[in-house]
C-alpha cells in the first residue's frame, strides 16, 4: 500500500520542493553538464574550488524529484568538503544506489541513506546518480557527461565502488 514511501520519503519530497543551492554561480572554477538521454533528465553542476576545498556549489536543471532531491542533498553534503572527501562520498553514494555495498559498510553517507531505496528500482537508479556523476565530471574538468556514454556510471562505476 505504501511502498512508494520507501523512495518518496519526506526528506526527498522536501528537497524536491525546496531544492538547496539551486541556481548558477557567476564564474565557477568547475562546471559540468549531465544528461540522461533516455529520460531527458538534465543537471548542471557549478562549483568554486578554493584550494582543495569546495566553496560555493550550485545546480540547476530539469529533472524528476529523485534526481533533483539527490542533487540538492549532494550540494549540502559536499559543500565545504575537500575534493577528495567529495569524491569519496560520491563513490559511496554510487555504491549504495547501485546496491554494490550495504549501508552498514558506508561511513560517509549520513542522511543520503534516504536514497538507498532506489537500488530496488533499476529504472530509477540513474535518476539518483546523475548529479553525482556530474559532480565527478566537474571536479575532473569534464564539460559534459551522460548516463549513456561510454563513461556510463552503471557500466563503469567511478573508482572502485
Amino acid at each position, binding site marked *: 500500500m505504501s*511502498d*512508494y514511501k520507501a*523512495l*518518496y520519503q519526506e526528506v526527498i*519530497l522536501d528537497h*524536491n520542493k525546496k531544492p538547496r543551492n539551486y541556481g548558477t554561480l557567476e564564474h565557477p572554477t568547475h562546471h559540468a553538464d549531465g544528461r540522461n538521454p*533516455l*529520460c*531527458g*533528465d*538534465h543537471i548542471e553542476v557549478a562549483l568554486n574550488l578554493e584550494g582543495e576545498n569546495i566553496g560555493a556549489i550550485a545546480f540547476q536543471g*530539469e*529533472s*524528476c*524529484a*529523485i534526481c*533533483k532531491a539527490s542533487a540538492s542533498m549532494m550540494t549540502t553534503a559536499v559543500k565545504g568538503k575537500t575534493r577528495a572527501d567529495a569524491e569519496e562520498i560520491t563513490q559511496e553514494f554510487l555504491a549504495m544506489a547501485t546496491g554494490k555495498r550495504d549501508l552498514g559498510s558506508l561511513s560517509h553517507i549520513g542522511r543520503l541513506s534516504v536514497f538507498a531505496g532506489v537500488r530496488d*528500482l533499476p*529504472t*530509477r537508479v540513474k*535518476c539518483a546518480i546523475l548529479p553525482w556523476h556530474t559532480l565527478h565530471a566537474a571536479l575532473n574538468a569534464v564539460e559534459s557527461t551522460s548516463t549513456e556514454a561510454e563513461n556510463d556510471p552503471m557500466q563503469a562505476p567511478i573508482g572502485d565502488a
Partner: protein
Amino acid sequence: MNDTHTAPQTQAASACDVERIRADFPILKLEINGKPLVYLDNAASSQMPQQVIDRLVRYRTTQHANVNRAVHTLSEIATNEFEEARRKLQHFINAREEREVIFTSGTTDSINLVMHGYGRKFIKAGDEIILTTLEHHANIVPWQMLAEEKGATIRVVPVNDAGELLIDEYEKLFNERTKFVGVMHVSNALGTINPIKQMIAFAHAHGVPVLIDGAQAVPHMKVDVQDLDCDFYAFSGHKLCGPTGIGILYGKAALLERMQPFKGGGDMILSVTFEKTTYNTIPHKFEAGTPHIAGAIGLGAAVDYLSEIGMDAIAAHEHALLDYATAQMSQMRGVRIIGTAKNKAAVISFAIDGVHPHDIGTLLNQDGVAVRTGHHCAQPVMQRFCVPATSRASFAFYNTMAEVDSLVAGIRNVQKVFA
C-alpha cells in the same frame, strides 16, 4: 487467480465483450506490486492472446524449418505457413496483391527499407522531403540521413495547439522540388489521427509518393491501403498482438519493382556469380536472409484474432475508453491533457503540475498501473508543446472502464504524495 475488474458499469455496453476478450490474455491476470496489472502502455507494445502464443508453440514444435529452400516436408510446411501469413496480412490491410506485402523487422526497418530502396535511388540534391512535427524519430532520422547524403532538404508540417496538422501549411510546402512525403497515420505521442487520405491525394496531384507510418493506426482501426491510395504503409507486429521483431512494409508493386534492394544476401537473388547478380522478384527482393518465420506466422494469427473481434468493434470500444478517460481527467485540477485533436485514437498524454513524468510513472506502477513516461521518441512534439516529457496512457480493446478508474485514482494518489 481472481480478476478483480468488473464489466464497465459507468458506460453503456460497448461493442466488445471485454471480459471474454480479457480471458484470452494470460498476462492480464498478473499482479504488479500486489495490485492487478492495469496495462495502459499499448502504444509501446500490446499484449499477446493465448491464440497467438499457441500458434507460435505449434510452429516451433511441429512446423519449423527454413523457408524457400529445401525440398523436405518441414521446409515445405514452413514455407506454406509463412506465405499464408503474408496472405493474411494482405487481406488485413486490403492490399491488391500479396507480393506488395514485405516482411520486415518492424516499422523502423520498413521505413529504412523505403529510404534506402526508394530514397537513395530517386532523391537527389536540392530535392525536398516533407515530414510532420508529429513524426516518431523512426520517420525522421532515416530521412535526415538521406538528406545529408544527397544534399536534400526536409520541410516540416507544423501543428496547432491541439496537436492537429495544419493542412493549409502542408499544401503550401509543395513545389517542383518536392519529391517525397512521410507522415504518420496516428500520433504515438498525442493520439492525433491525421487526415492522410486527403494528404495523399494532394501529394499525388503533385506527382509525389507518400509513405505512411501506420504503427499506431493498424492496431486500432480498419486500414485499407487501396482506399487510402498510399504508396507505402509501414507497421509493426508487436503493437498488433503479435511478436516483436516482425513488421510489414506495404508498397505498390510498380514502385517496389523500380526500387533497389535494401539488404543483400540469400533469398533476395535469382542468380549470383562474381561477375553479376540478378535480384529476385518482389517481395523476395527485399527479404534477404532467413526471415523471422515464427514472427510472421504469429502475426498472421494475431490479425486472425483481431479480425474475429472486428476492427470496427475494437475502434468503438477504444473510443468509449478514450471518451470516458478524457472526461474524467479533464476535470482534474492540476492535470493537463496534451493533445486534444478532434479526431483522436485512444492515447492520452498528460502532465501533472509540479510532478515530473518519471515520478508519476513510478508512483502509478506502485498501484499496478503501467503507463509510458518520457519523450515517446518524438522529441519535436515535446519541444512544440514545451514539455521535456509526458506521461502517456494508451488503451487497447482489452482495457476496461474500471481500469480507467484505476488510472484516475492513481493520478489522485500522485497529487497527494506531491501535495
